[in-house]
């Protein structure tokens, strides 16, 4: 479902928003951004000789970013713009096998389709410091509740509200507005892609 949404949103955006930013066809490598987001000074403690670290407040604020991102995604608030703001202006969201969704307009279009149901459940958030800011690993479940067309798993033959499970690997940076996603990679299933760098 998430893959479909992303593909649809990307195609729509290709025609109506930013054809010059139109993205590679499904299965292509994710586009790489070139413009660095505005930094608000050192987001984390880092020196040439010491590995990067995060403060307790960094961990807490990043956790809040995740929660806000999913609540805003599910609600489609402000026609998806609330969700888009959890990314940097040049932020990228790419699902394995799908086209990348890049920038606030496309990200907003992705979330604007959702309304009034709980569907995105984040678990197992693991945050690690990185040279760029932080890397976030998390599981995401698509469990649709009260969307009007799903049924519970209790009865034999009933459809499960659980649609899909997968893993996020996020590059997170600290901007003047706080922590934001710079790049989100989604891999459905339980196996981390061999293309992803494993946690340090």
């Amino acid at each position, binding site marked *: 479902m*998430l893959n479909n949404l992303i593909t649809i949103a990307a195609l729509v955006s290709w025609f109506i928003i930013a054809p010059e930013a139109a993205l590679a066809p499904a299965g292509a490598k994710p586009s790489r951004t070139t413009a660095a987001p505005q930094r608000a000074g050192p987001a984390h403690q880092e020196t040439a000789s010491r590995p990067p670290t*995060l*403060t*307790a*407040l960094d*961990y*807490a604020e990043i*956790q*809040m970013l*995740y*929660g*806000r991102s*999913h*609540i805003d995604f599910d609600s489609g608030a402000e026609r998806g713009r609330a969700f888009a703001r959890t990314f940097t202006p040049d932020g990228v969201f790419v699902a394995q096998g799908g086209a990348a969704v890049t920038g606030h307009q496309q990200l907003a279009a992705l979330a604007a389709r959702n309304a009034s*149901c*709980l569907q*995105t*459940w*984040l*678990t*197992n*958030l*693991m*945050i*690690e410091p990185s040279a760029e800011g932080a890397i976030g*690993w998390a*599981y995401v*479940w698509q*469990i649709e*509740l*009260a969307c*009007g*067309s*799903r*049924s*519970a*798993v*209790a009865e034999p033959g009933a459809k*499960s*509200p*659980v*649609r*899909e*499970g*997968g*893993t996020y690997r996020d590059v997170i940076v600290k901007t003047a507005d706080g922590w934001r996603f710079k790049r989100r990679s989604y891999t*459905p*299933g*339980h*196996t*981390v892609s*061999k293309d992803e760098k*494993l*946690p340090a």
Partner: protein
Amino acid sequence: MLTPMRSSIALGGVVLLLQPAATTQAPAPPATLTVLDYAEIKTVVGRYNLGWDNTARLDNGAQVAKAFTTDAIFYSPAPEPWLGSAGIAAQAAKAKPGISHWVSNLIIDPAPDGGATSWSSLLLTNVADGGRPVAFTGGGILHEAFAKTPDGWRLKYRRYEPVGRTPTPNWPKAEQGLFVPAPDPNERPRAGRLTSSDYIAIEQLYIRNNIGLDSNAEEGQRFAQTFTPDGVMVSEDGRDRTEGRMLAQVPQTVLKEPALHTWMTNLTIDSSREGAIGHADILNAHLVPGPNARHTITGGRRYTDVLVKTREGWRFKKRTYKAYAAAP
């Protein structure tokens, strides 16, 4: 002949030998944890899950090994405990693919030995490669202990109690989840903004609230105690309203009997003029003991909460909830 320094050391040793009682009776420093300890311990939990579920077949269990001390002990449902980081990593490397751990309601407390203990609820799923289908395969309670090593926090003890293993769930004790670490001394105060200590205290409050609901402990009082004395819980449409002392009745009206029921996610906390505003999404599951049991998702709730900081700590002043059904 002893140098002055050696003489002092020798004299000190004699004094120590002559006063063993004074040494052993010295009060131990109070157990404590910093805000960063909380964050790093949560990272260890995440590393274990990610390592077991996602990377063990790529890295031969290396991530899992990094989550444990070399002498760790893990009581899984297997007949014999798994021993040491290497032994546990070996189990991870040969585990059946598809398992995913959803750990929720993680409460962390300082331990007298300088480490930490935790209690959490676990929901186990099986996810096919490609993301679907997803099946809920079980769940239970995790009891864990952590040690701070030169390489950072590590699990030194882990015991998993699947649903049905004990006659009733081993709920946390009343004093668990109450410790609030002091703010990071290097954290710059920000007017009208929450500190890392506030975030942790509020998160732990949510968790105590969830566990209080699931356990109906002390006839609902532990749930009620997460609210101010004049606290209110009201449905979004305003039809259902419970306040004050009546909040203790909520758990028994929600659940027929105490059970692991509440899994929380998407917690967000923002500062407000009154204190803080919190949002959280709750997934309600019904877990059934035994192999091949049919577990069900029974619904969910979204909480929107007004929180205030009282002399006893953060409390819910008003909770507005919207219930979502899993059925059509």
